[in-house]
């Protein structure tokens, strides 16, 4: 297979109730990615936008951002999944004959009602009327996970403390906080065992990433960040048909991505990871399925400090999704942040000497689907 690289990155600041319509957010992220790469829109030969008709409150939601993403006259497509999945499609297109793909995702979560929108992902006949939504279903998952492996609420809270602290080094994120485990434990309960500070915020923002094939990648301003492996996988739909306590779908996606990248020992060979921590407990579960620790050892891993800044494998130096959760954008932002780390351009959140990075996106109820990316600074 031919090689491809990330050559341009652009993010808006992630904020609550951001000014500007969808197109303005997309234009800002796209322009920044083009400037970053030293490109003009005419240098882009195809575009993948990422949007969701429910979150945008309009049908054919890609129409709203097509002009702003520079689609006019171009071959363009739209993925209606988290940005990590959309980016995978963008990568496929550059490996199939296009030179450059612009991938851009946007979301204004503040304009909709996340509880109703996430409720619409459940079975309309049997499940919706129960009132299940992103928070209540995740609470079921958190409880099941904690019960099976003896994970404590305090261990989950440590994730929140770590990520909000990391966010203080990231000028783009929404919630840089100096909090303690006690603050998390005392924050208002949303759905047992999930409390306000275990949850990601409502965030508006956009992110754009430009991919190029090897021959093209070296022509542009920035050092290319190489894609070493990508894979995605989905679990069963209904919560009752899944093992909610352990993500076999993530394990499968990770195994495939590691195989492509030639990674045998992820916790030693990966220098930094950006994972999709929509809730604090999720980061612990993802540690396990990504092979950063043994099954059920997520709580011990966070306690060991290994995933903190300065630890052996810092996870979410950006502050993660707990600090800014622009739905659909968040997975693409993980890729963008991982690439910035490998360029050595992550500013105050830089992990020194990072050479191999992992980025992770999720999609669907209780992370039914997972997408895992391995990026590297060297070919």
């Amino acid at each position, binding site marked *: *297979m*031919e090689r491809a690289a990330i050559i341009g990155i652009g993010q808006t600041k992630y904020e609550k109730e951001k000014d500007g319509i969808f197109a303005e957010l997309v234009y800002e992220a796209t322009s920044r990615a083009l400037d970053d790469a030293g490109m003009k829109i005419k240098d882009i030969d195809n575009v993948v936008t990422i949007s*969701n*008709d*429910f979150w945008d*409150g*309009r*049908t*054919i939601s*890609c*129409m*709203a951002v*097509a*002009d702003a993403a520079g*689609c*006019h*006259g*171009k*071959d*363009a*497509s*739209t*993925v*209606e*999944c988290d940005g990590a*999945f*959309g980016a*995978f*499609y963008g*990568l*496929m*297109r550059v*490996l*199939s*004959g296009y030179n450059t793909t612009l991938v851009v995702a946007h979301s204004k979560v503040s304009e909709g009602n996340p509880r109703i*929108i*996430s409720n*619409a*992902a459940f*079975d*309309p006949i049997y499940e919706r009327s129960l009132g299940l939504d992103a928070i209540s279903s995740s609470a079921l998952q958190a409880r099941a996970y904690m019960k099976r492996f003896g994970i404590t609420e305090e261990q989950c809270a440590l994730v929140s403390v770590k990520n909000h602290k990391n966010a203080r080094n990231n000028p783009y994120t929404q919630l840089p906080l100096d909090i303690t485990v006690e603050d998390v434990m005392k924050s208002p309960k949303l759905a047992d065992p999930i409390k306000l500070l275990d949850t990601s915020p409502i965030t508006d923002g956009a992110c754009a990433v430009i991919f190029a094939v090897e021959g093209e990648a070296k022509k542009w301003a920035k050092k290319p960040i190489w894609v070493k492996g*990508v*894979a*995605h*996988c*989905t*679990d*069963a*739909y209904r919560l009752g048909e899944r093992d909610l306590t352990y993500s*076999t*779908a993530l394990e*499968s*996606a990770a195994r495939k991505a590691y195989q492509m990248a030639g990674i045998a020992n992820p916790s030693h060979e990966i220098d930094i990871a950006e994972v999709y921590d929509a809730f604090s407990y999720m980061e612990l579960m993802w540690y396990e399925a990504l092979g950063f620790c043994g099954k059920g050892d997520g709580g011990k891993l966070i306690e060991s400090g290994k995933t903190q800044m300065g630890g052996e494998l810092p996870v979410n130096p950006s502050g993660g999704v707990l600090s800014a959760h622009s739905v659909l954008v968040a997975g693409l932002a993980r890729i963008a942040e991982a690439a910035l780390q490998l360029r050595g351009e992550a500013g105050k959140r830089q992990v020194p000497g990072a050479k191999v990075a992992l980025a992770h996106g999720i*999609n*669907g*109820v209780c992370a*039914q*689907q997972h997408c895992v990316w391995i990026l590297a600074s060297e070919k």
Partner: protein
Amino acid sequence: MARRTAIVGIGQTHHCAKRDDVNGQELINEAVMSALEDANLTIKDIDAIVIGNMDHFEAINYVDGWSVDGSGAFMKPIMKLTTGGTSGMTIATAGYYHIASGFFDVVLAIGWERNSESDTTAAITTCCQPLIERDFFAGAIGPLAAEYTNYMKRFGATEEDAALVSVRDHNNALNNPYAHLRMKITVEDVMKSPMLCYPIKLLDMCPRSDGACALIYACEGKAEKIAPKPAWVHAIAGSRDFVYMGEPFQREEMFTLERASERAYKRAGITNPLKEIDVMELYLPASTTGVKWMESLWVCGRGEAPNLIRKGVFNMDGELPINPSGGPLATNPIGATAMIRVGEAALQVMGKAGDRQVPNVKTALATAFGSCSWSDVTILRDTKP
């Protein structure tokens, strides 16, 4: 460089106005099982799945996850794509790129819709800018009506020319057991049917259907083993226009179809489409587009389409048969409609189109139309690229 890729299996449901007997996952599963059977494969042979529809017609969010029981995606990669009317080809195209890029070998693409669950026009209207356009944009018919009125004035085309397209496609559908509307009609029937938005009458406009379509793509090396005569992808191209309705529909030409077909012809090495293409399956949302858009496919000069239509050039026994399946005027499960175009083109290339088969098809073209007058084009052949 892209790997060579072919379509090796085609499945579709029997399309109709309302499928009360199945739920969404079951509808999807019908198309999937039929495609697997066509290719003599099982779900174990499928490496990845792509799926799509238009959310607001069924009001189900995250369809990629919800559909797993019907699509067979359990513990497989699946992603959802959607671009409005073009969705079916957007998804089919994604199936192609999954393989062409080298990541997967055998991929299942699924397009589906249950329009009976929605108020189609109300849902489509929400595609418009909420402050400036939404209040007065009344669905898909108005812009198409304005486009043809303009065309009639410029070139002396008539309402009867459009009616001829409607008669052709509806009567072709009599040969297609999967078609939703299978009725023998005359130009007089079309002219007498209720006016929807001048000059488009009821029989000039596509219906709304329930249905699903599934295609199986395979890489070179596997495709030849799966299908005796795979339909090889020679070109895929798409083009987008501006997103405010006033811009694309005021153009004299069908800008995106011109750009997309031009690009596709170049990739497939076609210089004279009328002579070099044996059959076309076109996404014609209204009969009027079957007149005006022919010139945007470069099969004739500006204003020459009415004459070719009157001469029957695009009839089943003509030089370039169009829509042997009956096209969208006969069948329109929106998220599947454009994929059915690709599937029908593949059936023609593979010689499996039954009573609607055009003899000796070597090259077939399919198009998609949707969103703000956006177009996609796929060209298939019976030989490797």
